[in-house]
């Protein structure tokens, strides 16, 4: 699939889903309605960007969900009561992410195993911090997350800003190019004298950073935290990256697509509620939507390959 058309499918699937939602519930087509629809998509979008950083270097992170939960617990407790200590904990957790990235590369460990193990570590720490739901969101986060910009709701503005900034960082900057090169051909990068370990650690640190942002935003919206608050983010974030035109290997990712993918997934939940589908069926139906979109993409890429084959042959 050509890089330029890669972004079309996430745009298309979001548009179709949005149109369906507006058709079922015309009142959603308002400032308040849109904010409600996309509010909870902001932390999902950030977590998806975090996952994208890892997929960009040909790894996968199964600990995003518990990491965001852990951050949410830190935010609702330490960041609220002792801001300095809270910030220090969050910085340390970003460093921990970088160290995991370096470890995975130096020891050539499968990322899937290491991050699965880490998910229990983060989950355990979260339970230690908040054995039962509680805590409180720091007032400034609450203010940021409930700000009401004119014309366009906060959720939409936030998503546009996230997509724009990460696009600049990953797709346009020279450092981002180098990080994508690691996913494309790590051997070539190493042969040019770069330290792949450092680059991978950098990608993981970026993932940690965006994971922290996701957790903080989530608490800003929910006002309190729980050790299991974001468990489903792991699968949502992987699905979001792939839905957004990314691929598991080869460093082919798209930050704009990832944000769109996250929005689509968040919207799919609302869509199913509007359809008055019983919550028991919702997860299955969400999966069905995902399979549908990916099937369309597979057909596209098959076609593209056939055309290319015809050109070359």
């Amino acid at each position, binding site marked *: 699939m050509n890089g330029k058309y890669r972004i079309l499918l996430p745009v298309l699937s979001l548009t179709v889903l949005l149109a369906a939602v507006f058709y079922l519930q015309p009142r959603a087509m308002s400032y308040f309605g849109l904010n409600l629809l996309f509010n909870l998509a902001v932390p999902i979008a950030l977590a998806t960007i975090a996952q994208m950083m890892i997929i960009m270097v040909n790894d996968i992170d199964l600990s995003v969900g518990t990491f965001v939960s852990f951050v949410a617990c830190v935010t609702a407790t330490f960041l609220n009561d002792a801001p300095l200590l809270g910030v220090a904990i969050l910085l340390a957790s970003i460093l921990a992410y970088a160290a995991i990235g370096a470890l995975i590369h130096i020891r050539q460990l499968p990322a899937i195993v290491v991050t699965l193990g880490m998910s229990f570590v983060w989950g355990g720490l979260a339970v230690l911090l908040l054995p039962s739901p509680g805590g409180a969101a720091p007032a400034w986060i609450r203010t940021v997350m409930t700000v009401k910009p004119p014309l366009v709701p906060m959720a939409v503005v936030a998503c546009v800003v996230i997509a724009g900034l990460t696009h600049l960082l990953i797709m346009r900057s020279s450092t981002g190019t180098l990080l994508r*090169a690691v996913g494309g051909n790590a051997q*070539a990068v190493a042969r040019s004298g*770069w330290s792949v370990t450092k680059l991978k650690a950098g990608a993981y640190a970026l993932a940690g950073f965006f994971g922290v942002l996701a957790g903080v935003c989530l608490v800003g919206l929910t006002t309190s935290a729980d050790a299991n608050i974001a468990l489903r983010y792991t699968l949502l974030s992987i699905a979001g990256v792939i839905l957004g035109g990314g691929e598991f290997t*080869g460093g082919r990712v798209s930050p704009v697509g990832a944000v769109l993918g996250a929005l689509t997934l968040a919207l799919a939940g609302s869509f199913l509620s509007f359809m008055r589908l019983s919550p028991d069926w919702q997860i299955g139906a969400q999966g069905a939507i995902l399979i549908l979109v990916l099937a369309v993409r597979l057909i596209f890429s098959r076609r593209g390959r056939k055309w290319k084959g015809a050109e070359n042959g």
Partner: protein
Amino acid sequence: MEVATGAGRSMPDVPLVALSGACVHFGAMRALDGVSLTVSPGECVGLMGHNGAGKSTAVNVINGGLTPTEGHVRYGNEDGKHGTGAARARACGIRSVFQELSLCPNLSVLENLRVPHRDLTGFGWRKTAAARIAGALDEIFPGHRIEPGMIVGDLTLAERQMVEIAAGFASGPTPPRLVILDEPTSSLDASIARQLLEHVRRFCAKGGAVIFISHMLGEVFEVASRIDVMKDGKIIASRPASEFTQQGLIDAMGHVAAEKAAARTAVESDQRIGGEVLKTPEGLNARKGEIVGLAGLAGHGQAEALARFFMSRSGKLGRVKDPEVAFVAGDRGRDGVMPLWSILRNLTLTHLPSLTRRGLVDAVAEQALGADWKKRIGIRTDNLDNLILSLSGGNQQKVLFARALASTAPIVVMDDPMRGVDVGTKQEAYDMIRTEAAYGRTFLWYSTETDEVCQCDRVFVFRNGQISAELSGDGITEENILAASFQMQGTGA
């Protein structure tokens, strides 16, 4: 030749790179055995040699990718600021263009330049990168249709190779002084290859230097001012190109041994060989009881031809018990041994369907089969239940042979099976193969070593993914194989 006139214009007596007595050992293997070589400005050195002669190792020492175990590398124009190998070589303007593509397919052409060029940072780096790569492409390949913004994965193979070459010659933080081209024309067509050769000549005339590795003798003679011939990790001849002839070069690359083996097989093969049992679209064919060799330089389509044939004849439903083709892997780690299994379980793997009774493995029959093969091919172990990795490489390979030969398959496909096997085991394996062939088995044998290929009844030599010669009987000599592996005539001129 215009090369000679421009030689050494800028800095006459300072060589760009000088290897003195460089040795590189990988375990017991000496990949480089005391190589001394200097490259001065204005020179184009053609580096020639057969598989495993040490060309790539020499190149990797020059570009700093490998540190020699003995001897040293010295660069001209050194400022002493850069400590380690690769960075030091880069700071001295040494650039490499490798045979296997080293671009990132997910990045655009200009973004790929970011990887080797460390100074491409900050605001506006894209513009600089685009100007550099477009400038180099325009200079080397006028009339190319590559935009700097194109994604490399969408380019054709030839275009990718052009980008890679252009990146090697592109101006950068340090201008290119010595460019190493390893098989640069392998996927270029004749007219584009010609543009490259002309650029190499211009580049050398301006005081640059090039190390040129190619299997196209015509190209080498066209651009090289000096030809260095490597064999067994040594440089065995280094003379101005004008003192070589194409035939003389082929002779210099070859060994003299292994003539008698070929003679012996020719005699007894008459009684053994029956009717044709296989034929592939690309022209490969073999008869019952025949040992057919696939030769040529590494990576010219032999392994792929074997794999294609094997895949077309295996994996069908219902043929598991009674396979048509058995496979002996050469890359043991990748497609040979099960590292966590015992010797016995590794040996009986393909034979399991006939050892199965009511869905379970018949342990007694398995033991018996293992003991039988242990005796027949002499696997050196006291207990077949030991882990496969407890064996030496040669004995592991014997297990893989046994795995294939224990099946009833009439055709055995071997993908360079003697890789890393000691001489004694090799002799045993040759005998084993000959015995099995006498029972009417057909062998397809890809090998990178000429003395192995000389064991065969018939040899197909591959070049650029196609069969370039079919040799049989007394015609199987190293000389003929070399001649067919290297392209003799000029480059379409």
